[in-house]
């Protein structure tokens, strides 16, 4: 995880993983405009597909996990500009 996404001083909105699991699909690209409720990533955990939805509309700044990565609960998955 890069330092930018960790720091509290950046006023960037982060989208965090709601639970531990593996990244199943990444559904957005950097620079893409997404709307609130849009599925940004799908995790696979407990044999279930877990959609991760954007909480608000915005433009994707960084994507911090790729398909197959293990992510823990609370890890930042994407950041918004």
């Amino acid at each position, binding site marked *: 995880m890069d330092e930018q996404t960790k720091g509290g001083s950046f006023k960037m909105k982060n989208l965090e993983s*709601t*639970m*531990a699991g593996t990244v199943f699909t990444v559904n957005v690209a950097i620079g893409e405009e997404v709307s609130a409720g849009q599925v940004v990533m799908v995790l696979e*955990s*407990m*044999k*279930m*597909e*877990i*959609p991760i939805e954007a909480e608000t509309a915005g433009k994707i700044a960084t994507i911090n996990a790729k398909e197959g990565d293990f992510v*823990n*609960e609370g890890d930042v998955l994407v950041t918004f500009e």
Partner: protein
Amino acid sequence: MGETKEYNDRLEEKLASVYAGGHAKYHEKMKEQNKLFVRDRLELLFDNGEYIEDGRFANVEAGDLPADGVVTATGKVNGQTVCVMANDSTVKAGSWGSRTVEKIIRIQEIAEKNRVPMLYLVDSAGARITDQLDMFPNRRGAGRIFHNQVRLSGFIPQICLLFGPSAAGGAYIPAFCDIVFMVEGNASMYLGSPRMAEKVIGEKVTLEEMGGARMHCTVSGVGDVLVSTEEEAISEAKRYLSFFPANYTEKPKQVESKAIKEGRTLEEIIPENQNAPFDMYEAIDAITDEGTFFDVKKLFAPELITGLARIDGRAVGIIANQPKAKGGVLFVDSADKATKFISLCDAFSIPLIFLADVPGFMIGTKVERAGIIRHGAKLIAAMSSATVPKISVIVRKAYGAGLYAMAGPAFEPDVCIALPTAQIAVMGPEAAVNAVYSNKIEAIEDPKERLKFVQEKHAEYKEEIDIYKLASEMIIDEIVAPSELRSELANRLRFYEDKQIINAPRKHPVLPV
């Protein structure tokens, strides 16, 4: 004649000062914060704005402490008598003196004797430290308010509407209530204020971060219903109350049945693929009377939905896994959420309906360290000991201890109904085949052969857990078509109405908390 007039004038004058509340500048401040004066709140709450009051003259001699900062009243809400205590934050920020505390204790006693719900309209800065000896440690001090709340819990409904702060010890009033409504932006709860936290432990945070309404309704779970205005808090509290009897000896009122909301059918809502998410709220709409669903803790632990609703006019408590959030997996917080909700419904004779689509309890170090086992045990204990009508519906999968948590066959549900999409097993096919054959699978070198083997085993496993096989073995009691589920539930609720379970005598179980 002259003397009578003098008496009357004196009374009028005193009453006018009591009804006026605190200084005009505090009334102004409330307006700025979009807060209503305590008496306006009461007028909104009670039917026709009518209520009787006790202790209007409390601390009248002090001159500047009208009603000693709290109004205690009795009146009707939805035609049902209720007792209310309501802080007046224009009077010393709604802080508690000795008479404030005595008034609250007395209205609780009135609620107890009349066996009617008790509402707490909280907006208070906490104890008046200058008065502590008169209101803090004594037998009828603030501690007695909480003691009474604990005694009254499950005897009468207790509801908290939080309009402002509920600070330090005062924060236990909401904590001991059945449900807490919080107004976003104004309501807050904390043991130590941000100012105190900075002085004592060096932490610098805002009031919202420390104990704001949104935080409590989403993160801590101390708040249950987040609302945007006081009017909304009051109207939602009335709607909540309509599901409850006056006390534990009575049953919830049955109202006229309403049709379900127009929308997709259960067949259309539930995907065939067991692993694909769907929105359980839509499924709830497809079986409940339109517009009746009352979401409890909507924002907290959304992987499990708990809410009151009506089916064919009858009040029910619904506990449903939400596959759309965290796959519907059960966590520490979901267990807490369900435990309190089951206990609430069971206390006031509201039948429970479990809608299961659950992959199980979460695994991993994070949840083990958080005590998922004892939290799960707490949920299972609450579900297991509930004696109200208890209907388990296996909507889709029910794996592992998830089946137990959702009132599976071993927990004496009055009936365990499966939809044709149901799948009951220790674990799902993929996980099970892996667990049993992992060595064998790895030993097969040809990938095609390996895939063939795995697929064969999946098919065998699925046959093994086929829902008709479970019905044939009488593990589940019924299989019904999704389109028949609502009428099936309505009928069963009607027939189970007089269910009674007499438990063997003991003092009480040891709670696995």
